[in-house]
């Protein structure tokens, strides 16, 4: 029997949602400040309106949800797992809705749906875009587009967690597809994630700014502008760019290299970042050496390379790279080894990290058939590491599935009764139980289903199969590479399909499924 949610459930969800809206209202002062400094008076008005809507929605939700007798209690004290999931899903639907207001008022979008598409694409760190005349867009609006990447990639919920503590926040944390708890509390973990990100931001912007000024010959202000935009999009594996020709605009191998480093950094799990930055690996090695223990994994100086996830991503990256390069060589698109390797490497890295930057036009990507297409599509679908800003199936799940298959085959080959080592190393030894393998398999199959469903819709509108699949994988895996299908003129239902794919792929299904279940039990429950 379905149990209809009680009024208290709505109040709990409303209060948590209201607080998150207030956090986003606070964040929207940043583009406001940008517009003010740049004397961009038209966009400034739209940012004031957006902040007003966020603030009003947030304050009303808090006021309505917390009746006077409950005001002394913190709403998170009642926040259960399902509440947290509903809050996350609603956040990811409502923030792009209100966040699209400045886009719509800019006149650069043909409809509210197009503006919502770009806001969802920004927040979900996808990077597909329907903006028109991007090259004349106000810098403050460009900043807002890229800031959405940062908010989505680092996690709006994470930002809220830094500000509000409570018992139920673990659900909020997990709802955004994060599993690593690096420190004893979720709140301290959230702070650590933001600290790591801000440190990368300083290093990344300085590095790109130096290259922009000294190598590309941009003026100082524009060097910093480009550096900041590209940092947001690269580190958060987003893929928006301030110019319509994406990374191809810069015509610089050095700029691409620095960007590639940031893309890789964004695709690594925050757990891995934290362990590298905090020197956890070194300390672990010292501990093992001093205590003469026999855990060869924990004692390795190259502990990072021993984890199942790192090994898997290196394997899949190598595989898709070889596939793409052979495919490009067979097609004869590039006549030089330098061209083949630079263009092939950048595109495949962009696909595998889920970034979506490109150095070639989409019309050219559409010509990458055969193995080159296969390599790109597989790289996009697999994605980066778990608990990173990248989308896709994720390396850990792929590694677990491959390991489970290997164990099954080994079990069949060994004599009856022989034991198969079913453990794996992921910063500590873990058992690969059937539940773990099944969970990895289920999410992976959901991703495959999502990609095929999106491709089916594209096919129904007459898009060729290769392009339909490419675009669907790109949307569902939060990548943003386009073969030319994504355009303001595409059918409304196809736009809606990609929006849903972006949402489901970014939240890895569960939070959205719980929201659907919540609404269903509200309607049909007793």
């Amino acid at each position, binding site marked *: 029997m379905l149990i209809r949610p009680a009024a208290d459930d709505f109040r709990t969800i409303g209060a948590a949602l209201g607080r998150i809206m207030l956090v986003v*209202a606070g964040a929207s002062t940043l583009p406001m400040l940008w517009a003010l400094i740049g004397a961009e008076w*038209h966009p400034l008005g739209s940012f004031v309106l957006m902040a*007003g809507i966020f603030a009003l929605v947030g*304050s009303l939700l808090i006021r309505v949800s917390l009746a006077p007798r409950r005001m002394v209690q913190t709403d998170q004290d009642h926040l259960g797992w399902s509440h947290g999931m509903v809050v996350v899903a609603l956040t990811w639907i409502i923030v792009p809705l209100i966040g699209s207001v400045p886009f719509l008022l800019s006149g650069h979008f043909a409809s509210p749906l197009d503006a919502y598409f770009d806001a969802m694409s920004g927040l979900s760190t996808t990077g597909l875009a329907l903006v028109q*005349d991007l090259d004349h867009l106000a810098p403050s609006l460009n900043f807002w587009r890229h800031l959405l990447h940062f908010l989505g990639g680092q996690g709006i919920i994470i930002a809220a967690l830094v500000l509000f503590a409570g018992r139920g926040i673990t659900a909020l944390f997990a709802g955004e597809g994060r599993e690593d708890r690096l420190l004893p509390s979720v709140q301290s973990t959230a702070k650590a994630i933001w600290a790591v990100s801000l440190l990368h931001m300083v290093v990344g912007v300085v590095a790109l700014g130096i290259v922009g000024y000294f190598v*590309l010959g941009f003026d100082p202000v524009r060097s910093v502008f480009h550096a900041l935009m590209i940092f947001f999009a690269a580190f958060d594996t987003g893929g928006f760019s301030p110019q319509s*020709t994406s990374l191809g605009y810069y015509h610089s191998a050095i700029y691409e290299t620095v960007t590639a480093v940031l893309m890789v950094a964004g695709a690594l799990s925050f757990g891995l970042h934290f362990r590298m930055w905090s020197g956890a690996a070194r300390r672990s090695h010292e501990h093992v050496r001093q205590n003469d223990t026999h855990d060869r994994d924990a004692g390795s100086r190259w502990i990072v390379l021993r984890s199942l996830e790192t090994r898997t991503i290196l394997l899949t990256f190598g595989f898709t790279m070889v596939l793409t390069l052979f495919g490009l060589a067979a097609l004869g698109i590039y006549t*030089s080894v330098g061209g083949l390797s630079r263009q092939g490497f950048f595109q495949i890295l962009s696909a595998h990290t889920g970034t979506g930057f490109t150095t070639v036009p989409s019309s050219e990507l559409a010509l990458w058939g055969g193995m080159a297409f296969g390599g790109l599509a597989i790289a996009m679908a697999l994605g980066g590491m778990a608990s990173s800003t990248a989308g896709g199936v994720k390396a850990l799940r792929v590694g677990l599935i491959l390991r489970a298959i290997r164990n099954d085959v080994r079990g069949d080959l060994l004599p009856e009764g022989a034991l198969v080592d079913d453990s794996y190393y992921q910063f500590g030894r873990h058992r690969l139980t059937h539940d773990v393998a099944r969970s990895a398999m289920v999410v992976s199959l959901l991703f495959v289903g999502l990609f095929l469903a999106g491709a089916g819709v594209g096919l129904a509108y007459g898009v060729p199969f290769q392009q339909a699949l490419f675009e669907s994988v790109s949307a569902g895996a939060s990548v943003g590479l386009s073969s030319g299908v994504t*355009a303001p003129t595409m059918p409304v239902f196809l736009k809606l399909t990609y929006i849903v794919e972006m949402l489901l792929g970014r939240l890895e299904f569960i939070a959205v499924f719980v929201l659907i279940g919540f609404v269903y039990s509200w309607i049909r429950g007793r």
Partner: protein
Amino acid sequence: MRRMILAAAVGLVLVLANPATAGEIAVSDLVSDGASFAGGEVTVVGELIGDYGRRRNGWTWTQLNGDSYAFAPVVDGGELSGSNIGIGVRIPSEIADALDPPGRYRTVGPIVQLTGIWKYHDPDRQGETYLEVTDLTILERGRPLSESPEWSIYLAGFVLLAIAALVMWQYTRKRDAVG
């Protein structure tokens, strides 16, 4: 008969007055089918946009857009007509130094006619594609644009912020009273 000769003469004069348009191709053709023009001399018209990246080797890199926004940007009331269509171009710096600022927000860049070699997947630059400019003609100078604020949007925004502040003030006051 005399009318026909006169019309033909006028037509001939118009063609000769703008001789470069004869070999001109659209930027969109270069983007969609770049391979067909690889290594050939092409002439394109459009707006210089983005930045002038002045490099130490004597070249300046920028972007040439050949879409409708080059002539009527959205900020200037231009109609929406899809995404930008642009190509990378590199111009000898001594030519680029004389150009008006490139197109951006509230700026229309110079509208130019460029003739040059279409470097498609240039092996010397690891597969980059761009136009190496040999001749540049300014058709229209760049110009600044203005965009006035919409005060009604400001008003709506500030009203919503004021209501939100009022709601939160009332909420915290009651909470403190209950606590």
